[in-house]
Every structure is written in C-alpha cells, then in structure tokens.
C-alpha cells in the first residue's frame, strides 16, 4: 500500500515511475491487513500528525475512486471494560483532542448501545472517533497503482541496488536485467531491511505477527471499528510476548473481521491455535452475538516494526538517491497517502501534493521519520 501511494503521488508530481514487486499487488503485508485508517489508537506525536494528514488524503482519494476501494468513513469506538480503564481512556482522548483529533466521550452502557446495539451489556463507557475509517486494502493498492499510470513489474525480485562510483544509487537489478533510475524508493514493508542492506545501509525493520479471524457474511452487526481500550497499550508496547486485544469490525462484503494479536516470532507462518482462541474469546466478550457466528477462515501477516514505532520516510542521508518508505507497523494502509506525499516531495524538491505542497509543520514532522535516526549504518557509503 505504501509503495502504491508513493507511486501514485510521485507519478502525479510528473515523475516517471516503475514499481518492482517480487510478488503480486498486495501480496505481502497489505493483503494481510484490515485496511484500517485510524487516528484513535495513536498518541499525540509525529505518527498522529501523519495519520491526521493521511485521513484527509484518504477522503480525497475516496472521492477519486468512489466505491471501488470500499472506503467507509464509519468511525471508531474505543470501549473501556472497567471504570479505571475508562478514566485512562478519557485522559488519553483529552491529549488527542488537543492534538487535533475529533472525539467525544460516551457515557454509560445505554449511550454505547445507541452506537453499537450488539455490545455486551454493563460496559462503563468509551470514546467515539468519527475520523476513523476503513478501505479494502488490496483494492485500494490496486486502484492507486492503476491510477498512477506507473509501469508494473510484478513477480520480479530486486537482487541488487546499483550504485555509481560516487556511492549514489543508479537503479536496481532484477533477474530480468538492470533498471536504471536516479532514485530508488524502498517500500518493501516488513522486508525493507533487506533492500536497505542491498543498498549498503541498514534499517532495523522487524516483523510483528498478527492474526485476523474472518466470520461468515453477516448483515451489518457492527457499525464501526470497535475495540477494547487495552488495544492502545498493546500497539505502543515493544514487548516480544504475545498480546491480544479485541478489535472487531464489519466489512462492506459482509464478514466481520476480528483482531488483533501482536507477537514477535520472526517470519514464522505457522498457525497458532492459542492466538485464534484468544481472539475469538475476546471478540465474544465484547460482542456476545458473535459467539453464535462461525469463523470461516483466518489470515495472518507481519507488521513492519521499527524500534521506536515510527516509520522511516524520506531521503536516506547515508545513500544519495535512496529513499525510505517502510516500517509503518500496523498502520501502513492508513499512513500510506501521507507517506507517498512526503516521498514525492522529497523526490521532487517539494512541489508534490494536491495543493502544491505539504501542510505547515511538515518539515518538523519529516525530521521524526528520518531513516538514519537509528544510528546504525551511519557513515556506510
């Protein structure tokens, strides 16, 4: 998704773009996601600012590709399960509000039920985030790529990053030959560290595995993205141990998607029954109606995770001509348009974007995403 957005905004800035992917469109992390465009789970800081910009850009894209990407501005509802949890959630929401997030406190079980009639009874309250939205990620990536007009080279793996005598990037090598280009954007997601290594530098992207359960098709039983307040803590945690918290949402196609688990187990693709059991149980606790619904299938993937939970975006100062756009963890689909815009700006010297440039504050924001901030590979040219 991030790569598709980079291609889209770069092409729109007048650049000639070739997309090289060793797999099919959305064959990696994008296709294993839920397509969430969230501001609700982000604490104030650079990632939230990026998410707020992306939220606006997704709305513009949705007007450009109506219905085809299944864009649903349905809002999010974060639910506390204890009074103490509700206090913490309210405090968190207050800081988000100051940072520009629209959200409203929901008081008591009755008010929750007005929003989500199938929620379990007796919950103390929550916070409603109308800016949260969703797309179908594979469709969104495909339509952005198509609209970009970029040349697609699918099923073609980058085996080397070509560099000139001065160390600057001058293209990539694939089994089909050399592809010369003055700029290479690394949007390889969870595998971004490998591309960085091919370019002679380092990016410590790590995989964080997550499972999703897919129910049989239902009428709309869950109106918004609904999740338990502990999810926010799980997202922010750096722990390698398994964490699960109920995240439940309907889809335009009918099935309800149930997440979310996080664990650092490398690229282990084996199915974990224990994770599936926990996800199902927690979803049933939040929405008892789901206990009588069948799970049709599950899928899982690997979130690209950087040590400080922020993506790497922009020109990599260590390798001239190399641009990074990876490490968005579980927020890549949501953050893709803003990332694409930042990268297009970096590629063109600041003229990209629907209104001719980035918003005020963008330079500070870009600073937080500097690819070389981890202090590894510095001086490697």
């Amino acid at each position, binding site marked *: 998704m991030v790569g598709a957005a980079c291609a889209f905004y770069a092409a729109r800035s007048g650049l000639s773009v070739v997309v090289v992917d060793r797999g099919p469109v959305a064959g990696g992390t994008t296709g294993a996601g839920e397509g969430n465009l969230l501001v609700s789970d982000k604490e104030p800081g650079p990632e939230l600012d990026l998410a707020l910009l992306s939220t606006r850009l997704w709305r513009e894209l949705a007007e450009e590709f109506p219905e085809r990407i299944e864009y649903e501005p349905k809002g999010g509802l974060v639910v506390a399960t204890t009074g103490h949890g509700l206090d913490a959630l309210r405090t968190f929401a207050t800081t988000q509000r100051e940072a520009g997030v629209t959200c409203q406190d929901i008081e008591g079980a009755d008010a929750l039920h007005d929003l989500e009639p*199938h929620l379990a009874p007796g919950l103390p309250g929550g916070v409603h985030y109308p800016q949260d939205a969703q797309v179908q990620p594979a469709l969104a990536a495909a339509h952005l790529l198509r609209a970009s007009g970029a040349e697609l080279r699918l099923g073609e793996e980058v085996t080397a990053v070509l560099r000139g005598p001065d160390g600057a990037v001058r293209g990539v090598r694939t089994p089909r030959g050399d592809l010369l280009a003055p700029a290479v954007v690394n949007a390889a997601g969870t595998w971004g560290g490998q591309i960085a290594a091919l370019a002679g530098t380092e990016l410590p992207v790590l995989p964080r595995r997550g499972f999703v359960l897919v129910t049989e098709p239902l*009428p*709309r*039983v869950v*109106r918004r993205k609904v999740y338990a307040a502990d999810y926010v803590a799980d997202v922010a945690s750096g722990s390698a141990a398994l964490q699960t918290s109920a995240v439940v949402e309907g889809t335009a196609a009918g099935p309800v998607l149930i997440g979310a688990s996080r664990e650092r187990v490398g690229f282990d693709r084996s199915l974990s029954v224990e994770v599936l059991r926990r996800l199902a149980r927690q979803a049933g606790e939040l929405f008892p109606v789901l206990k009588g619904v069948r799970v049709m299938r599950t899928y899982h993937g690997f979130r690209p995770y950087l040590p400080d939970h922020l993506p790497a975006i922009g020109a990599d100062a260590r390798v001239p001509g190399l641009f990074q756009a990876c490490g968005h963890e579980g927020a890549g689909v949501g953050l893709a348009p803003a990332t694409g815009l930042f990268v297009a700006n970096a590629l063109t010297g600041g003229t990209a974007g629907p209104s001719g440039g980035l918003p005020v504050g963008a330079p500070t924001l870009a600073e937080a995403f500097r690819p070389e901030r981890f202090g590894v590979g510095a001086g490697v040219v």
Partner: protein
Amino acid sequence: MSRNPRDTSRTPLDLAHATPDPAFEITLDGRPLPALPGQSVAAALWAAGILSWRTTRRDGRPRGAFCGIGSCYDCLATVNSRPNQRACLVPARPGDAVTTQEGTGRADLAV
C-alpha cells in the same frame, strides 16, 4: 451390458442396492417432504424435485446444490433455525425444519 437409458428403475437407491429403513418427514418452509435415513438434506430436497433453497445476498438469485461435496458452500440452508448449514453435508433427521435462506440468513441481527 446394455441398459435402456429411459429405464426409470435406475434410481440412486437401485444403483447402490440400498435397502434403507422407512422414510421419515422433514419440512421445507413448512411443506412436508419425505427423507430416507442416511440422506443429506440436499439429497432429500432433490429427491422431492426441489433445486433451490437459498437466495444470494446481493441480487437475491436462486441457489441450491452445486458441488454436492461440501466444498463450494452454494447449498447453504437454514436448518432448525441455524443458518449457513451446507445442505449437502447435513444428514436429514426426522422433523428437521429446513427454511429457504435469504442472503446471510441472519437479517434479524442487522443494526
């Protein structure tokens, strides 16, 4: 060995030399139908000349058994108030109430 293709005695029961126990009754949308022990719900419906017992979610198109071996999920029916049962796999039992499934079969849950 040649057979007359119009020979109506070539029923599935004859072909399998089956001698099932006596038939019992199930219903489709309240209409009584005979079923044999060991028959799937889909087989009983087919034997009664019924080919469709579900409508699709979006366009309301008729659906019945397609693959007949549990793979395609086309033959979904509501059996004893449980939607999304694969009629080709569910054995018919005396008194089963099969109802035509409209869409997801769970319209009652919609909010």
